[in-house]
């Protein structure tokens, strides 16, 4: 059986496997393991299996998962999240969907710090959804927001994705960072607009509060003053270079822990509970990543990415159509294995063709970023959606009803980037 055929059968089996109710991460590991063994011999597949797992669980960068989720859980169990949402409600609760908008802004800022879409969704799933629940927000809306908002940071700097893209393709990372800002902010604004429009059309999905007086608003501030100070401290610490975004997880957790202890909001029992929750979610995410790493290595040796790329590039089509096909490959590939992994796999193959077709490399990087954002939330492997489902036990169908409008926004921006490349290229053109 040819390598490509093996790959196609492997992926088909994987999809069937998903339906058996097996843990997705384990299914990916199994299919990757058996497929790799079939093509390259089982002794090497055994070695691959254990080393990929060991590698994922000793990867320093992945410490962001347990640490940021722990920070969120401590904040939640100490009642800090409740106070934040109470205060936010005083200020913008009277705007339709106001609390969901606040969540978008908060999560975008959070993603900028922690750099991981899945960690952002995980943290906010545990914190923001229960709070929006309390204020009578429909689960569709609250879970949809949380599942998609984590993706924003892919193109808002600092973004690991853009750094790696820059190194693979020899593009200036500084230019890529600048290019991502405007599309990133437009997407954030569009998300806010969608929330407003959705609640306006269907007021039942989010209870709108009475407008508070300025006196009430100001009275709510002391409650959240210290929390805001902690966030400013963390963001400031990163900006000023006191610590890396990865370390910020530990610093933020420590600060929140300190704050909660001083104010006697956190019992030891609640701390343990927070730790268990941090562990649970981090393990769940890392098992998906480990599985998709093993699967990715199997896909790599099937040569499917290379063959598909060569075929597409050779098609006698309009250059825009070829580019759209290229993006579709990223979408499908990134749906099975980790988006970043797939980008590293596919970009070297496609990038020369993209240049030959005459597209601007910086623009391509940002547009690709939007494609990857879409990939994180669409099936079959939609890590951000899984995270939300797993933490909140909200059914997938409900979450997708909530994700849909935001997904449409992402596709819309993607199209807009095609029509107006200046959206990405204008800002860097001022500096370079």
């Amino acid at each position, binding site marked *: 059986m040819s390598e490509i055929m093996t790959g196609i059968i492997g992926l088909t089996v994987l999809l069937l496997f998903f339906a*058996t109710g097996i*843990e997705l991460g384990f299914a990916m590991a199994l299919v990757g393991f058996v497929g790799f063994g079939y093509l390259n011999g089982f002794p090497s597949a055994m070695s691959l299996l254990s080393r990929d797992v060991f590698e994922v669980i000793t990867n320093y960068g992945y410490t962001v998962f347990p640490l940021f989720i722990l920070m969120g859980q401590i904040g939640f169990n100490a009642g800090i999240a409740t106070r934040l949402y109470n205060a936010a409600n005083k200020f913008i609760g009277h705007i339709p969907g106001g609390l969901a908008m606040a969540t978008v802004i908060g999560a975008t800022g959070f993603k900028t710090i922690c750099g991981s879409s899945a960690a952002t969704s995980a943290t906010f799933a545990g914190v923001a959804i229960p709070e929006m629940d309390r204020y009578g927000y429909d689960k569709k809306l609250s879970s949809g927001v949380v599942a998609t908002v984590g993706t924003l940071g892919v193109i808002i700097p600092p973004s690991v994705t853009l750094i790696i893209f820059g190194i693979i393709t020899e593009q200036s990372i500084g230019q890529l960072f600048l290019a991502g800002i405007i599309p990133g902010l437009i997407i954030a604004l569009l998300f806010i607009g969608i929330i407003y429009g959705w609640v306006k059309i269907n007021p039942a999905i989010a209870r709108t509060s009475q407008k508070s007086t300025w006196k009430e608003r100001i009275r709510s501030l002391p409650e959240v003053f210290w929390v805001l100070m902690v966030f400013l401290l963390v963001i400031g610490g990163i900006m000023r270079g006191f610590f890396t975004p990865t370390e910020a997880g*530990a610093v933020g957790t420590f600060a929140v822990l300190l704050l909660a202890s001083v104010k006697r909001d956190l019992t030891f029992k609640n701390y343990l509970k927070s730790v268990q929750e941090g562990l649970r979610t981090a393990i769940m995410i890392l098992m998906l990543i480990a599985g998709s790493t093993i699967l990715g290595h199997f896909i790599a040796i099937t040569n499917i990415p290379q063959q598909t790329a060569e075929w597409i590039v050779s098609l006698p089509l309009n250059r825009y159509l070829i580019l759209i096909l290229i993006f579709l490959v990223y979408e499908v590939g990134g749906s099975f294995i980790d988006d970043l992994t797939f980008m590293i796999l596919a970009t070297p193959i496609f990038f020369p063709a993209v240049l030959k077709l005459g597209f601007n490399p910086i623009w391509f990087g940002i547009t690709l970023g939007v494609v990857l954002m879409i990939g994180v939330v669409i099936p079959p492997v939609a890590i951000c959606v899984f995270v939300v489902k797993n933490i909140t036990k909200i059914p997938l169908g409900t979450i997708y009803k909530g994700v849909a409008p935001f997904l449409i926004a992402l596709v819309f921006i993607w199209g807009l980037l095609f029509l107006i490349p200046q959206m990405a290229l204008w800002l860097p053109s001022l500096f370079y």
Partner: protein
Amino acid sequence: MTRPFDILRFICKLLSYIAGTALTVMMFLTVADVFLRAGGYPFVGTYEIVSLLLAVVIGFGIPQVSLDKGHVFMEFLLERFSQRGRNIMNTFTRLLCILLFACIGYNLILVGASYQASGEVTATIKLPFYPVAYGVAFCCLIECFVFIYDIVIIWRGQYE
């Protein structure tokens, strides 16, 4: 059969407490390093200790998460099966998972042995990798027992 499973549950809990402790240590160590570095005296080993601690956090926590059904899976198709069909399907997937973790665990022992034999250590403060590899291998073994436990309770009608 209850007694061995009490022991299993106890071991999973214990391992997950070790993982939780590792997470706490990871946080304090990183914070201490950030402060010391700001003062010009960083603790150079932090990065490597934290990486190895992550293996403890994740590896040692896996069995408890499996026991709690905390991993991501899809139930939409399974829900349409009869109880008996579900039991067969779940048993089948549990068996595959036993196979998977037995392979991972067995090979991690080999990986640990090769680290031990070659003397490979972390780059800067030269911590050995092999104890962590052995530790995670042990957790894979426990994970296999969790799946066996699953199979037993599936056929006792206590699963889910």
